[in-house]
C-alpha cells in the first residue's frame, strides 16, 4: 500500500488544547497526555480526514520551506508515532 495515499483522521477519544504553537493531546482512554512540538502540531492539525499524507507533505514543504524528502520523512515518521500512540482512527 502506498502510505502517501492514506487519509489520516484524529481519534475520537481525545481532547486537544493548544498552548502557544504546541498541541497537547489527552487520550481519554488511558488518561495519558502527549505534547507535540511545532512541526508535529502542524502535521496534526492537517490530519482532518480530508488531507492525504501526500497533501500534508506538500503543506509542510510550503509552511516550513523544507525539501520534499525531509517533509516526507517527517510526516511519515509522525504518522507512525501517532498510530503507535492510538491518536489516529
Amino acid at each position, binding site marked *: 500500500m502506498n502510505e502517501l495515499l492514506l487519509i489520516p483522521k484524529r481519534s475520537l477519544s481525545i*481532547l486537544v*488544547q493548544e*498552548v*502557544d504553537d*504546541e*498541541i*497537547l493531546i*489527552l487520550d*481519554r482512554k488511558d*488518561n*495519558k*497526555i*502527549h*505534547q*507535540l512540538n511545532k512541526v508535529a502540531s502542524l502535521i496534526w492539525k492537517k490530519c482532518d480526514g480530508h488531507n492525504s499524507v501526500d497533501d500534508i507533505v506538500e503543506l509542510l514543504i510550503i509552511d516550513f520551506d523544507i525539501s520534499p524528502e525531509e517533509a516526507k520523512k517527517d510526516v511519515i515518521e509522525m504518522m507512525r508515532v501517532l498510530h503507535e500512540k492510538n491518536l489516529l482512527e
Partner: protein
Amino acid sequence: MIKSNTHFQHHICLSIFECLIGIYSDSSSLLSILEKIYAGLQVPFSNKKINLEYRVQLVNSADNQHIYISRDGCDDLVTNDVGEFIFLLEKDMTIELQKIRSDLLFVHSAALEYDNKGFLLVAPSGAGKSTTTWALVNLGCNYLSDELAPINLKSMMIYPYPHAICLKARPPMFVLPETCLVTSQTIHVYGNMLEERTQPETSLLKAIIFLEYHPELPESKIISISRGESAAKLYSNSLNILAHSNDDCGMKVAIQAVSKTHNYRLLSNQLDDTSKKIMYLIQSLD
C-alpha cells in the same frame, strides 16, 4: 479492633493543609515515631473539628506483633513492619486530604523555598526528589515537602507538608543527622536541622523543575522548557487533576498553572553538581 478513640491513652493532633487529623494509639512507641515523623505538623488538640481520625493499635500474637490502622468507614490496614506502617498511614491520610481539600491541586513533588521563591522538584518515585531535597536544605533552602505539593491555583501558593524527609538510601554527601529513623526500606530524617529549615507557611510558586536522573551524562543540565511541555509533565504528575476538570479533564488547569511559573527540565547526575545548579537557578530568578 477497638472503634472508640477514648480507649487510647496516647494521641497527637496534626494540622495539614488547614485540616486537623487526630491519631490515637495504645502504643507510646508508635506514637513517639509519629511525633518525630510529623514534628513540623503537630498542633495541640483544641475545640476545633477534627477532619480525620485514626486509631493505631499494636497487637501481640504468639510469634509476631501487628500494627492495625483504623479509620471509620473503611477496612483496617495491617502490617508488622514499622516502615510499612508509616507508608500505609501516610498514603491513606494524603488520599483523604485530597478529598477534603479538592480545591487544591496536589502534585507529586518536592517543594522548597529560597529567598521567598517557592519551587517544585517534580519527578516520579525513585528519581531523586528526597535526596535532592536533603541536599538543598543543607545548602540553605527552606523545606516544604519531599513528596507532596498542594497548590492553590488562584494564589499560586504551595502548602507545606514538612514530614520527615524519606530517603531510600543514604546520600553520597550531606551526612545525615544521628536522629534518623531507619526502617526496613526507608530512612526518615528529622531533627533540629530540618525543623529550623522548615517553612511553616505557604510559599509563592515561582518555578517548576522536572527532575530526570541521567547517570550517563558528564554533568547535570537545566533546560528551560515550553509551557506546553511543562503543562503535559505537570498533568502527568498531578494526583487530582480530574477534580479540576470542566469538560477538558483538567488540561486547562495544568496550562494555567505553568503559565504563571518558570519551567525547567533538570537532567541530574551528581548530587553536588545538581543541587548547586538548582541553587544558582533559583537565586537568579526574578
